[in-house]
């Protein structure tokens, strides 16, 4: 019941967004008219087949790419360019290799001119939250894949954005670590509730994590169908309700060639 109250405000509104890439040789339409809304503290999974334009969609939502048409409003403000009120966790990690864990997590607050004492204190909190206490002075090359993405999550959190965009953050991990990180994300999110848009091409991951799963079509991508996932957390991969949803969603998703 408490959640009902928490997620009533609109955090992201996207209206008729389309994206076409123009290169010398040709123009390719990647996103074909998508409208959607995300409420405050909601965790929405965008689930689509490989190469359907998920990264492009997320980049457009975050302001890393300009939409060809349509508009995106995050927390009441129109998105026109990258900015610290939106956090991003990358499919390719994108950590700064020359900075330590602390340096990476502190990066946002440092750019925004927050004092050293305050930003390190805050960074320490988030490093602790993602379970990396004791690794503050390690460089990214010294960490395992799962630990690197923990840094990515802490870095995004530490800037205290109103929305977090996560682009297949666990896509590069082995299955075991992936399950672990999903539980970790749930734990972190339960502790520090945020609005999260989570891109994945893994159907179980989408159902396991999200309040709502939005299924995307092949390129040029559109919204195919939406599913509200009201299974209680923590969820169980082999729970009948879970399996039924999985079956249902599988039947609507486009197959990649």
């Amino acid at each position, binding site marked *: 019941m408490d959640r009902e109250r928490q997620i009533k405000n609109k955090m992201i509104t996207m209206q008729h967004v389309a994206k076409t890439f123009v290169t010398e040789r040709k123009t390719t339409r990647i996103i074909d008219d998508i409208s959607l809304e995300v409420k405050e503290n909601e965790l929405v999974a965008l689930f689509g087949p490989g190469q359907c334009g998920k990264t492009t969609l997320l980049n457009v939502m975050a302001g890393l790419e300009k939409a060809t048409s349509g508009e995106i409003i995050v927390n009441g403000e129109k998105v026109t*360019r990258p900015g610290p009120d939106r956090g*991003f966790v990358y499919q390719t990690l994108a950590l*700064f290799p020359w900075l330590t864990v602390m340096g990476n997590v502190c990066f946002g607050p440092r*750019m925004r001119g927050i004092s050293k004492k305050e930003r390190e204190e805050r960074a320490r909190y988030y490093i602790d939250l993602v379970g990396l206490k004791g690794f503050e002075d390690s460089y990214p090359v010294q960490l395992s894949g799962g630990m690197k993405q923990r840094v990515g999550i802490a870095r995004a959190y530490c800037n205290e954005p109103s929305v977090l965009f996560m682009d297949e953050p666990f896509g590069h991990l082995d299955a075991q670590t992936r399950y672990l990180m999903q539980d970790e994300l749930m734990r972190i999110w339960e502790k520090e509730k945020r609005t999260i848009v989570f891109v994945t091409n893994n159907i179980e991951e989408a159902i396991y994590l999200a309040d709502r799963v939005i299924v995307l079509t092949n390129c040029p991508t559109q919204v195919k169908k939406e599913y509200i996932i009201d299974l209680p957390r923590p969820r169980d991969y082999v729970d009948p309700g879970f399996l039924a949803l999985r079956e249902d969603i599988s039947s609507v998703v486009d197959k990649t060639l």
Partner: protein
Amino acid sequence: MKVSISGAKEKTLRQMKAEEAAKNVLCALISIFVFCLVWHLGTRNGTKLGELLPGPVETLSYFFRGFAANIGTYTMVGHMIWSFMRVFIGYVIAMLIGIPLGVAMGWSKTANAIFRPIFEVIRPIPPIAWIPLSIVWFGIGEGSKYFIIFLGAFTAMTINAYAGVTSVDEVLVGAARMLGADEKQVFINVVMPSAVPSIFAGLQIALSSSWGVVLAAEMIRSSEGLGWIIISGQNTNNNVQLLAGIIAVGVVGFASVLLMREIERRLCSWTERGR
């Protein structure tokens, strides 16, 4: 949980590195010894080669005696310092101009459009081709030497600084912008650090070409420096002095490369090459 896993790993890694270093030193000593042995046997009394080339004992003892006794006006160390200072000054001027130039060309399309044509014309000209002109401009003294060393060093520095800046990972730039960095902050905090390894590669290349150039300059016009030792050895038919000069060049060049690597290791501990 308190016991740092990375700490334990580092220690074994360090041990392995130490073992490997010891092995490398041993191999180096053996190979130098074998080389000297072959040299010695090849040039021993009575051989044809022996008439043209002094043996290792003679050469090395001349080389080491040079540290105490003067060769010409200076001791061996004095000559090394002369050559080193020439390289150093030309090299530093090249750094001060070449690196900012390359960075500017990489960062700004306008700067690239302005400087690239001139640069592309100067780049393929071997620095030695400038020697006569530099003597006309700067006289036969030190100025002309600095000038051609500068020319020999700055092209590699510029090209590599340019490459470092242009090859910055766009995703990292995007990540920095997402975290709130403005243009200037992106440049200082993302573009420059990611260009550092490439800049160092340029500095290494420039260092070896500087040594080549200083020798050529000293052979043409000078009365001190390692190039002078070699050329005056030739002029006075003193092959021992000539060879000792060549060995000194090797020693000093090698030492400066080592110094450079150490600086790089300290500055880029986060790269593969740096660790």
